C-alpha cells in the first residue's frame, strides 16, 4: 500500500489486487490511525480505452496462451485500487510506562509517500487503544473488517440512543438483541411496540417458551385473560384525563356529554374512581337531567367496559417486580387506535416519571419504536431531558431519522445506524456530530444486519459491525402473509 495524497482529514491510499482491504478497516500509518470509508479503482489514464479494447471480443469467445511468468502480472495495473480513509486520530505514548492511547485529531503531518509503512490495524490493538473489551460470552456483533472481531456493547454506556435504518435493514433485530442483554444484566426495559415485533421474544419456537419467559410480559389491550406471557393491559380510569376518555369514546369536545365528563372528573379529582363510579354518576338524574345525554353517556360507559381497557391495574407492581429482577414489559400497540396508543403511552410515561421521582425505581430502559406515531415532538424532548433525570434511558428506533426532532440528535449518546440510501436521511444522521458525511455515505453499501455504531459504546470511534444472530428466541413478530 502506498500513500497517494491527503486533503483535510482524508487520506488516499493505493493498494494492489493481492492486498486485502475492506470498508471499515482501520489502517495505521506510523502513528496515524485512519478508517477506510470508500474504495475505488485507481484512475489511470488510458484505462477506459484499455478496457474497451478488451470488450471488442467477448471473454467467452477468447482463448489465451500467456507466458506463465507474465500471467500473474497482466491485469494487475488496471485492478489497482484506491482507498479513501478518514483520519480518526493518532496513537500517543502516555506515562512513564510508555502506555499507548488513542487521541482524536492530528496537529502535525509527517508521513512520507515513499517511506511510510501502511498496514491494516489488528482489531485487538484497536480495541485496546479505545479501551474496549470484547471477551464476553455472547457478543452482540462482529466487526466488519479484514480480521473480524467480536464486539460486545458496554451496556453501562447506553444513554440516549438512536437505532435507525431502512425497513428490513435489521434495526429491530439489533434492538431486540440489546433488550435481551439488558434482561440478562437485570435491567427493566419498557417497549412501545407498534408493529407487534417483540411479542414472541419469550418463545424458543412457536410452541415452547425460552429462558426469558419469566422476565418478559406482553401487555395487550382489549384482552380479558392472561395467557403465557401475555397479560391484559388495563389503565385505571382515574389515571387518565376526561379529555383522553372523551377522545377514546368519540365524544366531541364542547357538547353536553363532554361537559358532564369534565364535571365528573373535577368532582372526583384526587380520588380513585373507576367505570362503576362513572356509571353511578351518569345514572343520577341530578347530575345528568337530560335523558338523551344520559343514554349517550351510558352507552359510552358500556363501550368502555366492553373494551376492557379501563379498570384496576397492577402495572405499578409489575414495574417494581421486573425492575428488581430485570425484564421487559412489551406494550403491544399494534392493534389499537392512534388515540388509545397515545393514552397508553402517556399513562406509562407519567407512571415511570412518578416512580423515578419517588425513587421507587432506580433506572429503566425505554424502547420507543416509531415514536412519532404516539409521542408529540414536545413530549419527545421532555423524554430526553426531564425523564433522564428520573432514570429513564430512551432508545428511539425508527425507519426515518427525520421523524425525530433535531434535539434528539444533538443530545445523542449513541447511534446505531443500518443501511440508508436516501440523501436527506443520511444528512439527518450527520446532525448528531458523532459522524461525518463521508462516513455516513458508507451506509449506502451496507447489507442487512450490518451497521455503523458510534458513541460512548464505541469510545466515539465509528465501528462497522455485523449483528450476530440470536439463538433460542423467536425474533420475528406476528405477521400474516398475503399469499399462503
Amino acid at each position, binding site marked *: 500500500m502506498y500513500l497517494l495524497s491527503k486533503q483535510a482529514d482524508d487520506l488516499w491510499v493505493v493498494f494492489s489486487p493481492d492486498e486485502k482491504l475492506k470498508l471499515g478497516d482501520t489502517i495505521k500509518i506510523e502513528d496515524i490511525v485512519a478508517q477506510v470509508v470508500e474504495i475505488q479503482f485507481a484512475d489511470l489514464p488510458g484505462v477506459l480505452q484499455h478496457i474497451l479494447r478488451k470488450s471488442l471480443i467477448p471473454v467467452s469467445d477468447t482463448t489465451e496462451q500467456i507466458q506463465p511468468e507474465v500471467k500473474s*502480472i497482466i491485469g494487475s*495495473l488496471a485492478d489497482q485500487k484506491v482507498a479513501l480513509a478518514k483520519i480518526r486520530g493518532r496513537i500517543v505514548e502516555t506515562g512513564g510506562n510508555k502506555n499507548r492511547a488513542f487521541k482524536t485529531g492530528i496537529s502535525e503531518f509527517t508521513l512520507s509517500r515513499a517511506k511510510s509503512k501502511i498496514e491494516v490495524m489488528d482489531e485487538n490493538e484497536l480495541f485496546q487503544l479505545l479501551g474496549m473489551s470484547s471477551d464476553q460470552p455472547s457478543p452482540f456483533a462482529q466487526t466488519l473488517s479484514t480480521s473480524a472481531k467480536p464486539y460486545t456493547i458496554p451496556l453501562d454506556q447506553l444513554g440516549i440512543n438512536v437505532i435507525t435504518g431502512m425497513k428490513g435493514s435489521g434495526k429491530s433485530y439489533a434492538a431486540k438483541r440489546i433488550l435481551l442483554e439488558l434482561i440478562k444484566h437485570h435491567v427493566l426495559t419498557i417497549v412501545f411496540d407498534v408493529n407487534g415485533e417483540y411479542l414472541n421474544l419469550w418463545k424458543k419456537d412457536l410452541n415452547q417458551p425460552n429462558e426469558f419467559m419469566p422476565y418478559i410480559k406482553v401487555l395487550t389491550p382489549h384482552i380479558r385473560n392472561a395467557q403465557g406471557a401475555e397479560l391484559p393491559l388495563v389503565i385505571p380510569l382515574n389515571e387518565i384525563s376526561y379529555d383522553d376518555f372523551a377522545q377514546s369514546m368519540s365524544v366531541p369536545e364542547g357538547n353536553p356529554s363532554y361537559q358532564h365528563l369534565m364535571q365528573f372528573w373535577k368532582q372526583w379529582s384526587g380520588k380513585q374512581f373507576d367505570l362503576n363510579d362513572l356509571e353511578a354518576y351518569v345514572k343520577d338524574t341530578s347530575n345528568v337531567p337530560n335523558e338523551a345525554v344520559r343514554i349517550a353517556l351510558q352507552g359510552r360507559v358500556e363501550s368502555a367496559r366492553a373494551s376492557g381497557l379501563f379498570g384496576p391495574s397492577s402495572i405499578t407492581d409489575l414495574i417494581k417486580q421486573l425492575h428488581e429482577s430485570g425484564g421487559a414489559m412489551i406494550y403491544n400497540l399494534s392493534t389499537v387506535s392512534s388515540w388509545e396508543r397515545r393514552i397508553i403511552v402517556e399513562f406509562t410515561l407519567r407512571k415511570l416519571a412518578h416512580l423515578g421521582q419517588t425513587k421507587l425505581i432506580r433506572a429503566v430502559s425505554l424502547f420507543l419504536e416509531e415514536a412519532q406515531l404516539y409521542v408529540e415532538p414536545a413530549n419527545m424532548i421532555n423524554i430526553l431531558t426531564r425523564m433522564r433525570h428520573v432514570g429513564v434511558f430512551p432508545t428511539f428506533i425508527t425507519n426515518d431519522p427525520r421523524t425525530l426532532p433535531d434535539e434528539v440528535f444533538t443530545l445523542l449518546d449513541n447511534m446505531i445506524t443500518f443501511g440508508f440510501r436516501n440523501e436527506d436521511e443520511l444528512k439527518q444522521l450527520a446532525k448528531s456530530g458523532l459522524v461525518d458525511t463521508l462516513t455516513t455515505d458508507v451506509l449506502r453499501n451496507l447489507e442487512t444486519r450490518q451497521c455503523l455504531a458510534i458513541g460512548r459504546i464505541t469510545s466515539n470511534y465509528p465501528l462497522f459491525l455485523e449483528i450476530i444472530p440470536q439463538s433460542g428466541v423467536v425474533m420475528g413478530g406476528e405477521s400474516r402473509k398475503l399469499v399462503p
Partner: protein
Amino acid sequence: MINTDPVVTALRGETLKSERFRPSQVDLSQPFVESEKSIADDRDETTVHDEGRMETARLTPKFPAESNVTAIDATGLVLGVIPDGFVAALRASIITKTPENKHMLEHYGPYLVAVTTTNIDVIYQTLYRAVYGDTPPSSQSPKLENILDTVRNLLERYLQMQVATRSNRTIILLDGSLIGIIVANPSSYVRRIIDKSAENQNSLVAISKTTGLILERSHRSILSLLEGVLGPCYVGDIRSHIQQQRERYLGDIYVAKFTPLGEPFRIDIPENTPTSHADLLNAVAGLAGDYGYPEELRLAHMTCVFSAIEILELQAAAVAFHNLVMEEEVDVRQKIFPF
C-alpha cells in the same frame, strides 16, 4: 489453440542475472503503442513497368456470410534496454469469423524475450529452426536493431503455417505480402504456406498498407494507380509488369480500394486459390469497414497491439522474471545543460 511451445522455448532463452534495466518511456495519455513493422516484405524498391494500360475493374462487395474468415497479426515492442541489449514483448492475435458471423479471438502471448549481443545468434538460430525447420545461412545474422522485428516476423509466419494447416475452406487474411528470398521470409517457407493453404481449400489474401513497388514512369508507389479513383475497384495484375526478380513474388499482385473512399492497399493472392481472384476480392470488399480495411484484420491488429497499461505491467514482469534492477532514464542533455 496452436501449440507454440517450440517458439516460446526459443524466445525464453536464459534468464538474465540482475542486469540494470532502463524501461522505455510510457506515455499513459497515448492509450495504445503502435510499432511499425520494419521488415518491409519488399525492402528494396522494385520497378513496375507501366507502359501498357493497367485496367481498373469494379468490385462488387459480397459479404462471405457462409465462409470462415481468419486474420492473423503480430506485434513486438521494446520494454526497455539492458547493457548490450534489450527486453521486449511479443504478441499475436488470430481472429476468426464463423459462418454464424461470430468473432473468436486467440491470443498468443505476451511473450518476453531478452536479447543481447551475446545471445542474439542463439535466439535467432533456435527460433529460425523452430519455425522453418532449417538453420539460417550463417552469413546473414540479423543486427540488434533489426532482431525484434525479425523475431516478430518469425512468430507470425509460424502461426500462418499453423492456420493454413488446421483450416479448411477458409479465407485467410495476412498483414503483409507474399514475397520470398529474403532472410526473414525464405521463399520455400512462404511457398509451403501457400501450398498447404491450397491443399486444404483455403484462400490466402495478403494485404499491405505500404509497398516498395514503384511505377517506372511516375516513380511513385503502385498504390497511386487508384489515386482519385472511387472504389470499390482494383487494378491487376501488377506482377506481370515486374521484370526484375519476378520469382520473389509468390502471388498475383493487385492494388485495390474496397470502399468508395477507402485507402488503396496492395493485395497478394496466390495463383492456386480455390476461388477466383475476382470473387476473393469481392469477398474482401464485403468484409471491409471504415477506411476500406477488412474488419477481421483490423480486429487482429487492434487486439495484438499493447496498451500503455500493459506495457507498464510487462516491464514489471520483465523485472521480476529476470531479476532486473531498475534504472531511471538519464537525459544526458539535461545533465550537461541543466538550465
